[in-house]
């Protein structure tokens, strides 16, 4: 992977840099719903991680293998039974949370298999989404590029929703990074952020 590939990826997926910032060099990483393996390649280049991806889509499996990314074909909603307890430093769910069916079960599995979890997801509370709904349409944006009839997203949420969910599931959030496009958002994150990235572990 060349320098320009890395920069291109970082520009296309601003959550990648936010995720990488939390990962120490040489960590072991499991990337759930890893797509074509871009995040794992990015983390391999920038953080020298050792890792595996889990993906269900046939074409993505071929891409991962072609990209030299270790990938295990499996349906996330059927659990992570191939993976042992505490076998990874980090389990990552990047832009996939909203497309999982058994969301609570997956978060629990992430924290069974990994010492820490990281999720990124499109913030449904972003003002543009709110405006779309207010004017009478389902939101379609860079982060939510689907029409209502073909979206894989079944569990969209806002920052508030996710944080409530974590409290209820005894998951403790240790860091949060909210972005609008490539820019970090400080003020009114649930309104101004289009993408949220959370780092979390088992609650005490």
């Amino acid at each position: 992977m060349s320098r320009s590939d890395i920069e291109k990826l970082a520009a296309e997926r601003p959550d990648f840099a936010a995720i990488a910032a939390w990962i120490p060099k040489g960590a072991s990483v499991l990337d759930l719903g890893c797509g074509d393996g871009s995040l794992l390649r990015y983390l391999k280049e920038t953080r020298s991680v050792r890792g595996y991806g889990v993906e269900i889509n046939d074409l993505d499996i071929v891409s991962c293998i072609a990209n030299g990314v270790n990938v295990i074909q499996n349906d996330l909603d059927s659990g992570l039974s191939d993976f042992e307890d505490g076998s990874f430093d980090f389990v990552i769910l990047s832009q996939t949370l909203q497309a999982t069916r058994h969301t609570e079960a997956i978060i629990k599995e992430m924290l069974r298999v990994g010492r820490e979890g990281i999720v990124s997801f499109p913030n449904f509370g972003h003002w543009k989404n709110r405006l779309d709904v207010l004017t009478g349409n389902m939101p379609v944006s860079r982060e939510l590029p689907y029409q209502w009839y073909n979206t894989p997203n079944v569990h969209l949420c806002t920052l508030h929703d996710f944080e409530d969910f974590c409290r209820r599931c005894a998951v403790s959030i240790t860091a949060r990074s909210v972005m609008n496009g490539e820019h970090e958002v400080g003020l009114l994150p649930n309104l101004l952020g289009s993408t949220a990235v959370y780092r979390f572990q088992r609650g005490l």
Partner: protein
Amino acid sequence: MDHSVGIVTAQRAQFDTPLTFRSGAVLPRYELVYETYGTLNADHSNAILICHALSGHHHVAGIYADEPKNVGWWDNMVGPGKPIDTNKFFVIGLNNLGGCHGSTGPSSIDPLTGQPYGASFPVITVEDWVNSQARLADLLGIAQFAAVIGGSLGGMQALQWSLAYPDRVRHVLAIASAPRLTAQNIAFNDVARNAILTDPDFHGGNYYQHGVVPTRGLRLARMLGHITYLSDDAMADKFGRELRAEKFNYNYEIEFEIESYLRYQGDKFASYFDANTYLLMTKALDYFDPAHDFGGDLNRAFARAKAGFLVISFTTDWRFSPQRSREIVQPLLHNRRKVSYAEITSAHGHDSFLMPHPHYFDVARAYLNNVARECGS
């Protein structure tokens, strides 16, 4: 023929150093027949070994000059531009020891007695095969294979390579395979063996001297095996309840198309395959268990492996189900080995691994392209 390796010739290697089997038996000398396709590169780093399954042999790809219709059993996978690309790799197919296609086996003449080995041919294991294959590799000047590839029982040999010779294999492709058989799978093998062992023409394995062949037993064994290699849906699609005649005959002649098909397959197989070899192959399947010497712990068994692994299964394969392939993946994950796993959606059951399925081939090709890059091909 497009993308074929074309006309090939079988070769023969003679080994005069005794081979000690896992059972303790010793074979003083033996021969292996093999074929090669493609060109070995200067640093001998682009060799791929193809291990065959129960009824396979050394004729993996291409045709023979005098038998233009005798196409290799994995010709759709192996050839120029194919997933196992003979423009990039030097590919070796062999007939395993104990086989009936030219390598020393039960039907070969034992030089000590001047008679076929028959029942005296030692019961062979996957470990023994891999040891004999390593000697063939020595003979061909291959210190390390770029990859060892096999489906089903062939996949077990590929796995065993990574355990017995961790420094001699860079990649393993284990397709429609298992780390060890389940009770159900052993049970199928035992029924097949019993069909042969109870055939009156079996003569304790020394039927050659009696001028007969236990055809009935071998045919039944193959018919049973064949059922387990197909999926329920594939059989339903292909045969359904089709009758050969228009109405029921109310007798025991062949009536349903599936009966006709199975008997044809059984007869065809029994006409060329050796019953003793069939017995040996099924026993090798049953015995294989890398965890046997590690208290049943596959995690410990696979700790020795150094290769990168591509494990492939097929959704409708119930003889070597996806779950069995996951049992290969799990100890590799435990030991943090490089491994990828693809579960191919296919209707054709265990036989899928021999079929030209586009996605299956894409997966294999993607993996092997990287292997080729590693060895500079």
